[in-house]
């Protein structure tokens, strides 16, 4: 109980001053940096400020969660990181790379597996490497399939696999292009609850054992707590950082074990409260 209060207090202090979200510590290896990023949408009915003054960073090797009220622009944040969408203002850098190179550094995992039904599992896994014209990735991709229990399904078609297996294939397809940064956009949303728990476990262990940096967007608080090292809570539109929750105390636990931890409920309530009351 005691250590938990300290942890929460620590982050409360951070959220009080938004500039503190960005670490001043020079030792921290920062991969992604958002500085004062804003985005304005234009359509027939007018313009909407979707994101304003967004400051945060993703440290190398961490699994950062982004939660926020629905429609607050969580997915947009990922699109900005990978430069599919250009921000209206502010500065974004991924490993100091400028816009166009950024997309090659990022690997996406989407809500649905989006496996192509007319390709075999091995062809699906190699799709990204073919499109990016990367040579000699076959060995690595096949090794990943073997390592994560899909070796025997290389020549099967997606329709012959279960939902959980398909989502693992989707992750390996992303990893095959050796991205520096994984962007996970509600990747479990289309799975039923039972499968979801297992796939969360799988994906977490794959990301950790491949030592990847990942940004995980979700509306599911408990999923975020069971996966992430740190969680950023966004406000409703226009999105900005409301609070950063540090999950270091349960960082070493696996997703299913975290759900058993007494801290889990505390974190849940903290994030829940912050999502409830509107800005400020």
């Amino acid at each position, binding site marked *: 109980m005691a250590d938990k209060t300290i942890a929460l207090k620590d982050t409360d202090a951070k959220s009080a001053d938004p500039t503190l979200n960005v670490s001043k510590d020079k030792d921290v290896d920062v991969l992604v940096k958002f500085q004062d990023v804003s985005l304005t949408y234009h359509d027939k009915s007018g313009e909407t400020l979707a994101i304003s003054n967004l400051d945060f960073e993703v440290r190398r090797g961490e699994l950062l969660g982004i939660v926020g009220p629905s429609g607050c622009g969580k997915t947009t944040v990922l699109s900005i990181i*990978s430069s*599919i969408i250009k921000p209206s203002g502010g500065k974004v850098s991924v490993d100091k790379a400028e816009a166009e190179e950024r*997309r*090659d550094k*990022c*690997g*996406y995992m*989407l*809500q*649905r597996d*989006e496996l*192509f*039904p*007319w390709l075999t599992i091995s062809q699906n896994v190699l*799709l*990204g490497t*073919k*499109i*990016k014209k990367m040579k000699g990735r076959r060995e690595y991709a096949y090794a990943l399939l073997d390592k994560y229990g899909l070796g025997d399904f290389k020549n099967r*078609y*997606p*329709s012959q696999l279960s939902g959980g297996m398909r989502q693992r294939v989707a992750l390996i397809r992303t990893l095959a*292009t050796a991205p520096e940064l994984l*962007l996970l956009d509600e990747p479990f949303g289309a799975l039923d609850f039972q499968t979801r728990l297992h796939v969360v476990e799988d994906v977490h262990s794959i990301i950790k054992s491949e030592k990847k940096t990942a940004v995980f967007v979700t509306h599911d608080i408990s999923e975020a707590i069971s996966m992430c090292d740190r969680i950023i809570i966004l406000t409703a539109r226009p999105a900005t950082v409301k609070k950063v929750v540090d999950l270091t105390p349960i960082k070493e636990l696996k997703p299913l074990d975290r759900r058993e931890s007494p801290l889990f409920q505390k974190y849940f309530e903290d994030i829940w409260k912050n999502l409830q009351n509107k800005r400020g």
Partner: protein
Amino acid sequence: MKKNMNCSAEHKKYLTAQKHKKIAVSAMRWGVLILIIALWELLARLNVIDSFITSSPSRIWETFISLCKDGSLFTHAGVTLYETVVSFLLATGLGTLIAIALWWCDTLRNVLEPHLVVLNALPKIALGPIIIIWVGAGTGAIIVMALMISLIITVLSTLSGFMEVDKGKLTLMDTMNATKLQKLFYLVLPSNVPTIISALKINVGLCWVGTIMGEYLVSRAGLGYLIIYGGQVFQLDLVMTSTVVLCVLAALMYACVALLEKLAYKKFGKA
């Protein structure tokens, strides 16, 4: 076989019943055909119907044999088949290419779409005389005619397939930084194989219509010419024989496309 070995007696009974049902339906199908032909022949023989006007199966068969002997049937059927296959291939190929161009360029699509819809609504047969004047009364005009009838609908149906490609998969391609050409070859074309095949199926029928209409107008050679000629000289035997041959050829071509569809669905069918 293996499956049948270890299934329950009840299931075996069910399977046998299903099999019997299938055999019965197929027997009845042939039965209906044979019955109609037999009735036609019988009524003609008994002079209940005037076989000068209605012809009869035996007279059709005689005409068929004599047309085969002097080889004219093969010439005419060959001409028609050639015109149909060429226009069918052209319609499918050109149609798909035009659909790709329209998918590629949003502005082009927005500008041309209403024109295509109007062209599609136009009864193309009305263009017959113009086509004959422009292209000349021959095989060319007939192929253009069949092409006119099937091309626009191919473009429209293929294009709508292209535009309905799964948005999530397009997003995936975007996240992989795919170029438009890569999106076309890796996603849009493969996912539209079923659409293109179903366009083929429609085209088979339309191209036969176009070819026969063209032959009616041009009247030089082909099954359409035989039918028109037979009608003009009141040789109903010739008209009926040509029609039956036409029927068989069209059915064969349709069967080929259906087979292609089966193969394609196996590979590209939606999971």
